[in-house]
């Protein structure tokens, strides 16, 4: 049985359907990447998995953790899950920590609450966690306050807090976007190492295809509230079947820079024409149709089903591309 199974998850806010029938599964120890741009619904998915949807949001479908249904469950069941079995790391390390509590106290809070540890035991556990994330106590005593740390160090504290109760699944929502490049790389390394040594599942949500390639074994590409493509990461990169995925890769400056060789600048980057559709006015049929270079009439008739294009690799497109990715 998969650790986490999401089926036909749909979330609407104010009558606008933001997530439309999203399904996926995460096995124990898996590392799943969820990639998409703003408005695709990836962050909303993460919030739904934690039971942290904003007031006024309605969710339908099913979210099962170890077979137990969570969607629609009473708050008490969510509280037993949050922080204890599923933990989350957010994008902004500056605001994720309470500025008036010491880092040790914040990391220890989870174990005290969820594991019922005594203050002394929780503190010991906190020190261990801080040590493991690269903040040894001799240089970073647990009595330090968040403002005394840099962005990268704060994010490490956030990770320590998330890990303190040994969760089965860690959801990281753009954990490194607000950090410098070299620090980003270190944090991603840390997350990968921690997931590996604890057998913890990692769900990495990002807009960066590079991050997905370097840190995940399986991936989902989301567009306009739906899954556009999914499969083993290496397989998806080898043959990007959905036109959106191909467009995303082609448009990324990283890919463009790699293609340039030693040529001087001037080569224009391939772009995806148009814009992401307004969720309130999504077109009938394939949401990418208006921007797709390969659109046909069949595309607009109905939302395309997910078609197999390779081993465990599917794309929601009626004419997926076949050649290896650019």
């Amino acid at each position, binding site marked *: 049985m998969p650790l986490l199974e999401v089926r036909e998850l749909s979330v609407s806010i104010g009558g606008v359907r933001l997530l439309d029938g999203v399904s996926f599964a995460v096995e124990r120890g898996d590392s799943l990447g969820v990639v998409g*741009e*703003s408005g695709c619904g990836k962050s909303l998915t993460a919030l739904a998995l934690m039971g942290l949807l904003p007031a006024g949001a309605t969710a339908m479908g099913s979210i099962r953790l170890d077979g137990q249904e969570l969607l629609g469950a009473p708050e008490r069941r969510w509280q037993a899950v949050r922080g204890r079995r599923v933990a989350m790391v957010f994008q902004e390390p500056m605001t994720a920590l309470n500025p008036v509590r010491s880092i040790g106290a914040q990391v220890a809070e989870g174990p005290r609450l969820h594991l019922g540890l005594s203050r002394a035991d929780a503190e010991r556990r906190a020190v261990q966690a801080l040590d493991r994330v690269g903040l040894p106590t001799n240089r970073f005593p647990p009595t330090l306050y968040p403002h005394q740390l*840099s*962005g*990268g*160090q704060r994010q490490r504290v956030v990770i320590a807090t998330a890990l303190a109760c040994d969760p089965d699944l860690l959801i990281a929502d753009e954990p490194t976007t607000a950090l*410098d*490049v*070299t*620090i*980003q*790389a*270190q944090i*991603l*390394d840390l997350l*990968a190492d921690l997931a590996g040594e604890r057998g913890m599942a990692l769900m990495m949500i990002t*807009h*960066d*295809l*590079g*991050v*997905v*390639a*370097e*840190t*995940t*074994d399986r991936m989902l590409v989301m567009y306009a509230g739906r899954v556009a493509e999914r499969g083993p*990461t*290496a397989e998806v*990169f*080898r043959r990007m079947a959905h036109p959106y995925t191909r*467009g*995303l*890769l082609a*448009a*990324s*400056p*990283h*890919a*463009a*820079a*790699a293609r*340039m*060789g*030693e*040529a*001087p*600048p*001037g*080569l*224009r*980057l*391939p*772009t*995806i024409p148009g*814009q992401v559709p307004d969720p309130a006015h999504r077109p009938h049929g394939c949401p990418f149709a208006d921007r797709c270079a390969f659109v046909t009439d069949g595309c607009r008739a109905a939302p395309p089903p997910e078609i197999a294009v390779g081993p465990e690799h599917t794309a929601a497109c009626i004419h997926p591309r076949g050649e290896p990715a650019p």
Partner: protein
Amino acid sequence: MTTPLLEVADLVRDYALPRRRLFERPGSIRALHGVSFAVMAGESFGIVGESGCGKSTLARAVLALERPTSGTVRLLGRDLTALRPRELKAMRRHMSMVFQDPYGSLDPRHRVARIVGEPMGSLMPEVGRAERAERVREALSEVGLGAAAADRYPHEFSGGQRQRIAIARALITRPELVVADEPVSALDVSVQAQVLNLMLDLRERLGLSYLFISHDLSVVRCVTDRVAVMYLGRIVETGPTAEVFARPRHPYTQALLDAVPRPDPSRRGHRHARGEPAGDGAGGCPYAARCPRAAAVCAQAPDLAEKAPGHAVACHRV
């Protein structure tokens, strides 16, 4: 040799720290340690670095928003640091800036026409209202926005469109130099590509020069001719962008290039260099504390020395 459009020489900028005791003299922190470089007309020059490297301070010094502690900034041959306020104001029409945050760089209470035309009001007061409106229309169309955009408010536009509006504003006085401070960092990937293409188009069409500041090497690679890599207030490597990208010599540049996540699944399991920018290393090479190649000689700060044509590096161990 023609005069460079922009010439920065030995720029030093110190910031006073808040006093810790009432009668103590405040300490200072050195944000720029004698930075020098030149940008030729029509050239696009990139400044790459992470937080704390001094790139924002550099931008403010180049735009004469702050007075440097020492050093000179020459625009079109004239030293901006030595000009009187009126002369400086007259020089401002030759440069402009595009900011990182498309949401914060446009006044939410002004219409687009007013925002785009604003620089003309102070820098070209002699231009009449009719001509100003015409130039605003022109600028908007140059960045791919229709004339209808002029009457709307910023909140009616997306991030990418707002950045276009900001670019239109930066072009309105037909400056020679545009300082772009992380102009695409806050945008989605597909929108980034659109805006970068726009900037390339404008450069070709209008003969602009960019001082392109970014932490993202790939973006800099796509848009600039030459680049300078900064670390803790110093330039550690500089040269033609293609060259520095293909053959980085300074350990920091190498670490930076290696750290950028690449859409290449074979890099799964790859581990990166460690360490964070520490405080100002007393006198020696600022990177020594993190450098895998640090040696005794690194206790003395290295100067920028040319190691290949046009390609200079500040490192003893290269």
